[in-house]
C-alpha cells in the first residue's frame, strides 16, 4: 500500500517547484503572495515527509518504484527511472524532507520582505526534489541526475541575490568546483559500467571486483565526494556559499547537498571494503580537512563563516568514519549533524534578521533580547561540541571509537587520525563557545536594537533544538546498549568493515576523554570570551600574530588556487584568443577570403561576353569529352 504512494514523494516537491516557478513567471500578481507560496512549498515538503514517515513506520523490506518510461538506453542496457527505498535511502529521505521542511517553514518568516520569495521557494522545492532523486536513485545515472540537480539548485540559491557581483561569483565558484568533482563520479560510473555491464545498484553491489579496480573507482568517487561534500582540495566553495540567504545555507549544510558525498561513499561501501588502502586515503584527507577547517573557524568574525567552516570540519568527521570503514556511523553523524547544524544556521539567520549584520564584533548580549534564539543556539552549541547527552556527543564519540578501534586493529596510522580528531573535537568546542559567547553573552555592541524573531521562525528552532537533544539516542554506544541505527536499521543496507570491539573499559575511557575535551574547549572559550569578550579576541590576535592573520584569511588557499589554477587558465585563454582570434582567425580568414576573391576574378575573365569565345569553349569541351570517352 505504501509503495503505491511513494512516487508522490518525488512528485510533490517537483510539482511545487514547477507550479511556483512557472506560476510566478506567468502571473506577476502571484509573486506578491510570498507567504502563500512559501506555505505551499512547505506543505508539499512536509507531505513528502509524512509519506516517508509512513514508509518508515511500516518498513519491512526495500521498496522499489519506477516511472513508466526508461530514461536512456546505453548500448543494450536500459536505464530506467527506478527508485529504491531501503533503510539507508529512507533515513536520508527523512532527514531531507524533515529538516528541509522545517527550513521551508522558517523561510516563510525569513523571506517575508523579499520580492523574489516566489523564485526562492521554487528553487527550494527543486533542491529538495533533486536531493531526493540523488538518495533514492536505484542506478548510478539517476543518482548522477540528482547530483547535478543539487549542484544547479545550489547555484541558483547561492546566487539568489545575484545583483551583487560577489554573490554571483560565489554561486559560480560553487558550481564550478562541484563540476570538477562531478568528473570523478562520471569517470567512476563509466568504469564500473565497463566492468560490470550494469548501472543497477543491486547488480553493482553483488559484483566481485579486482582490488586495484575497486581502488581506482573508489578514489574517483571520493574525489567526487570532496567536491560535493567540501573536503580538501575542493572545499573552498562552501565558505563562499554563505552569499545566499541564510536558510539556504542551513539547507545546503544540514539537509541536502554536502551530505551527498557521505551518502555516495556509504552506498558504494562494497568498493571500499575491497580496497582498504583507499580508506586510509579517505581518512587522512578527512582528518586533515577537519583540523584545518576547525583552525580557520577559530579566527573568523563572520558568524556564517564560522558555521561554514564548522560544517567542513564536521564533514571531515563523517569522512573519517568512512575512512574507518564505519559507514553507518558516518550516516549517524549526518543524521545528528543535520539537526544541530540546521539549528545553528537558522539561529544565526534569526540573529542576522534581528541585527542586520553578520559580524560577531557587532553582536553581544543577544540572549536577553532574543531568549528563544539564544536558548536554542546554546543547545546547538552544546550539541555540536559533544556534551552528553546531546546528539553530537553520541555520533562524535562513535566516530572517535571507530577510528581508535581501527588503530587498535593494527593500522597504526589510524591512531594519528584519532589524535587529530581529538584535537579537532577540542577546537570545535572552542570555536563554537567563542561564537556563542561573543554573540549572545556580554553586552550588545551593535547599533540597531535587536528583537526576537516571529513564531514562524522560532518554532522550527525549538523543534530542531528538541531534535538536537534526543537524536543521539538513535545510536547509543556499545557501553550503554545496542546502537539502533547501526545494528538494527542500517545493517541491512550498509556492510560495515568489521571492527574489533573495544572493551567496555577502553570505551568508557575514550568517552571520558572526548567529554573532557569538549568541556575543556567550552570552558576555555568561556574563560576567554565569556569573561572578557572582544578584548580577549584582540589579545589572542596579538599573541598569535601572523598565524591569526593567516587563519583569518583561511590560509590564503583561495589565493593559491587563484594563482595556480585560475590565473594560468586565463593566461592560456588569452594565448588561445590571440592565437585563434588574431592570428589564425584574422590571418586564415583573410587568406581564404582573398584567395576566393582572386579565383573569382580570374574565372570572371572567362566570361568574355563575346559569343565566338563561348563557342570555342563549347567545341573545346566537346573535343575533350570525345577524347575522354574514346581514349581514357
Amino acid at each position, binding site marked *: 500500500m505504501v509503495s503505491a504512494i511513494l512516487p508522490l514523494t518525488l512528485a510533490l516537491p517537483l510539482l511545487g517547484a514547477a507550479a511556483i516557478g512557472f506560476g510566478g513567471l506567468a502571473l506577476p500578481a502571484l509573486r506578491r503572495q510570498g507567504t502563500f507560496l512559501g506555505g505551499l512549498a512547505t506543505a508539499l515538503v512536509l507531505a513528502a515527509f509524512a509519506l516517508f514517515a509512513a514508509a518508515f513506520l511500516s518498513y519491512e523490506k526495500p521498496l522499489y518504484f519506477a516511472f513508466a518510461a526508461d530514461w536512456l538506453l546505453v548500448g543494450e542496457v536500459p536505464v530506467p527511472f527506478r527508485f529504491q527505498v531501503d533503510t539507508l535511502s529512507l533515513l536520508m529521505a527523512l532527514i531531507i524532507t524533515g529538516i528541509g521542511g522545517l527550513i521551508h517553514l522558517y523561510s516563510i518568516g525569513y523571506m517575508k520582505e523579499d520580492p523574489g520569495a516566489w523564485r526562492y521557494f521554487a528553487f527550494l522545492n527543486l533542491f529538495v526534489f533533486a536531493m531526493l532523486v540523488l538518495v533514492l536513485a536505484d542506478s548510478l545515472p539517476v543518482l548522477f541526475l540528482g547530483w547535478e540537480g543539487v549542484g544547479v539548485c545550489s547555484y541558483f540559491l547561492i546566487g539568489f541575490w545575484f545583483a551583487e557581483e560577489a554573490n554571483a561569483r560565489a554561486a559560480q565558484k560553487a558550481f564550478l568546483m562541484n563540476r570538477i568533482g562531478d568528473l570523478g563520479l562520471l569517470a567512476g560510473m563509466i568504469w564500473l559500467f565497463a566492468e560490470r555491464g550494469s548501472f543497477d545498484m543491486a547488480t553493482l553491489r553483488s559484483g566481485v571486483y579486482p582490488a586495484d579496480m575497486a581502488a581506482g573507482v573508489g578514489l574517483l568517487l571520493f574525489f567526487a565526494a570532496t567536491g560535493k561534500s567540501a573536503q580538501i582540495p575542493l572545499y573552498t566553495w562552501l565558505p563562499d556559499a554563505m552569499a545566499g540567504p541564510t536558510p539556504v545555507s542551513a539547507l545546503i549544510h544540514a539537509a541536502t547537498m554536502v551530505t551527498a558525498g557521505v551518502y555516495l561513499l556509504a552506498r558504494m561501501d562494497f568498493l571500499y571494503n575491497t580496497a582498504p588502502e583507499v580508506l586510509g586515503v579517505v581518512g587522512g584527507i578527512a582528518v586533515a580537512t577537519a583540523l584545518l577547517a576547525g583552525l580557520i573557524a577559530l579566527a573568523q568574525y563572520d558568524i556564517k563563516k564560522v558555521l561554514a567552516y564548522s560544517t567542513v570540519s564536521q564533514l571531515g568527521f563523517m569522512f573519517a568514519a568512512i575512512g574507518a570503514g564505519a559507514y553507518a556511523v558516518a550516516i549517524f553523524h549526518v543524521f545528528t549533524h543535520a539537526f544541530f547544524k540546521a539549528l545553528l544556521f537558522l539561529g544565526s539567520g534569526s540573529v542576522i534578521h534581528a541585527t542586520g549584520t553578520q559580524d560577531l564584533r557587532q553582536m553581544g548580549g543577544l540572549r536577553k533580547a532574543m531568549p528563544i534564539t539564544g536558548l536554542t543556539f546554546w543547545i546547538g552549541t552544546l550539541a555540536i561540541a559533544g556534551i552528553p547527552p546531546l546528539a553530537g556527543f553520541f555520533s562524535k564519540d562513535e566516530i572517535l571509537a571507530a577510528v581508535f578501534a581501527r588503530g587498535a586493529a593494527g593500522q597504526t596510522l589510524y591512531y594519528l587520525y584519532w589524535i587529530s580528531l581529538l584535537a579537532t573535537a577540542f577546537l570545535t568546542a572552542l570555536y563554537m563557545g567563542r561564537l556563542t559567547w561573543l554573540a549572545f553573552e556580554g553586552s550588545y555592541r551593535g547599533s540597531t536594537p535587536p528583537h526576537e524573531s516571529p513564531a514562524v521562525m522560532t518554532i522550527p528552532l525549538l523543534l530542531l533544538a528538541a531534535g538536537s537533544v534526543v537524536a543521539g539516542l538513535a545510536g547509543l554506544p556499545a557501553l550503554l546498549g545496542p546502537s539502533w541505527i547501526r545494528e538494527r536499521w542500517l545493517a541491512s543496507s550498509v556492510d560495515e568493515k568489521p571492527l574489533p570491539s573495544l572493551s567496555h573499559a577502553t570505551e568508557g575511557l575514550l568517552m571520558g576523554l572526548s567529554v573532557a575535551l569538549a568541556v575543556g574547549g567550552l570552558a576555555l572559550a568561556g574563560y576567554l570570551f565569556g569573561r572578557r569578550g572582544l578584548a580577549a579576541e584582540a589579545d589572542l590576535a596579538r599573541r598569535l600574530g601572523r598565524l591569526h592573520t593567516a587563519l583569518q584569511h583561511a590560509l590564503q588557499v583561495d589565493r593559491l588556487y587563484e594563482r595556480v589554477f585560475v590565473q594560468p587558465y586565463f593566461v592560456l585563454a588569452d594565448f588561445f584568443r590571440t592565437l585563434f582570434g588574431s592570428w589564425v582567425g584574422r590571418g586564415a580568414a583573410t587568406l581564404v577570403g582573398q584567395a576566393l576573391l582572386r579565383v573569382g576574378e580570374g574565372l*570572371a575573365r572567362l566570361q568574355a561576353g563575346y*559569343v565566338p569565345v563561348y*563557342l*570555342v569553349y563549347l567545341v573545346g569541351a566537346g573535343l575533350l569529352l570525345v577524347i575522354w570517352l574514346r581514349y581514357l
Partner: protein
Amino acid sequence: MAPELLYAVLTLSGGLFSLGLLGLLLRRNLLLAFLAIELLLNAANLNFLAFSRYHNEPTGAVFVLFGICLAAVEAVIGLGLVVRVFRAEKDLGFAKLSNLRW
C-alpha cells in the same frame, strides 16, 4: 547501300560539319553564324539518313524529320532574334553584342 557510298556520304557530312563549325567560329556576323548553324544541323541530318539507309532502319529517317522540324522552329526564333537585335543595335557584329558581359 554499299559501304563505299556510306563513306562518301559520311565524308560529305563531315565536310559540311567542319564548314559550319569554322563558319561559326570565324564569322563575326550574327546572321552568318546563324547560317553556319543550319549547316551543322544539315550535316547531322545527312549522317542520320546515311546510317538509316545503311542499316535499313527507319528510326534515323524519322529522326531527320524531327531535325528538320527543329531547324524550322530554330529559324523562326533565331531570325526573329536577329531582327530584334538589328533593330536595337543597328549592327549584327559580335563585337558590339556584349551587353551581358560581367
